């Protein structure tokens, strides 16, 4: 298993700023997207990702290639930062789910797309954390089941169970969109 990030991580660990910048450019968009989907808040997602990268810089000099792909490890760090934040705001999901925008037809197609996106995002945010994480990793980030299971620290069977339940709930909540 060849990790394309090994060299960059090693160089960043030695204080090479260009390597750190390249590492950030490669992974930041994906990690920010995951955090945004998990936390349903841009500000919190940025904070979580910033914390995760601080951990990367701190551990880069001790990084041992071969144990896991750097990206898998980074996903796991970001997920854990998201869980920490979700744990600190009980019932936040319910509050945010209540903000599902009205599905009334919009005159402007752009507005309609934005509303659709918000509605899907709200339905996703209302899922239990583990189901949400599984759905985001497999269906949004297009991770394989094995990688996603490794990121979440669970078995592939458990991941498939989370996925099935998450998809079922999402589909029920967004049934009116499918019909539309």
């Amino acid at each position, binding site marked *: 298993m060849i990790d394309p990030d090994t060299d960059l991580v090693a160089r960043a660990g030695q204080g090479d700023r260009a390597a750190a910048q390249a590492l950030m450019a490669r992974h930041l*968009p994906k990690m920010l997207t995951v955090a945004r989907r998990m936390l349903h808040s841009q500000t919190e997602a940025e904070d979580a990702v910033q914390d995760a990268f601080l951990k990367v*810089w701190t551990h880069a000099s001790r990084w041992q290639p071969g144990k896991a792909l750097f990206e898998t490890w980074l996903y796991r760090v970001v997920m854990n930062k998201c869980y920490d934040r979700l744990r600190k705001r009980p019932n936040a999901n319910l509050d945010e789910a209540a903000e599902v925008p009205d599905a009334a037809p919009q005159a402007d197609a752009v507005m309609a797309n934005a509303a659709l996106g918000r509605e899907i995002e709200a339905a996703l945010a209302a899922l239990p954390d583990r189901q949400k994480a599984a759905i985001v990793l497999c269906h949004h980030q297009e991770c394989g089941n094995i990688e996603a299971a490794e990121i979440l620290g669970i078995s592939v069977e458990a991941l498939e169970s989370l996925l099935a339940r998450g*998809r079922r709930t*999402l589909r029920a909540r967004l049934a009116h969109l499918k019909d539309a």
Partner: protein
Amino acid sequence: MGNGNLPNDDAAWATGMLKALPTVPVSAALQQNILASFDVVVARRRAGVFARIRDAVWPGAPVWRPITAVAFSLVIGVLAGTVVPLEGAMADNNEQTASIALDAPPAFDLNENS
């Protein structure tokens, strides 16, 4: 029947639905903050062994905080050490006396009773 294809159908539906989500913008400020945190970590690492120990004990704290904490705990330790051992030592002596008394052979002076 169609039921056999339901899970795959669900998966395709979920993937398609999540594609409708808007892309998440990466702000320049966030990138700058992340790189700034890299600079801080590198600067600390280069600051030397003392800074590394400080970071292990109290990450991100100014130097005076761990020094004050260590000095304060030292004072408490010395104060406690000057008071507590007296009682401890006495307890040890009592135990010692008792064990000597038990170990000692019984001594009777028969002539004293007559």
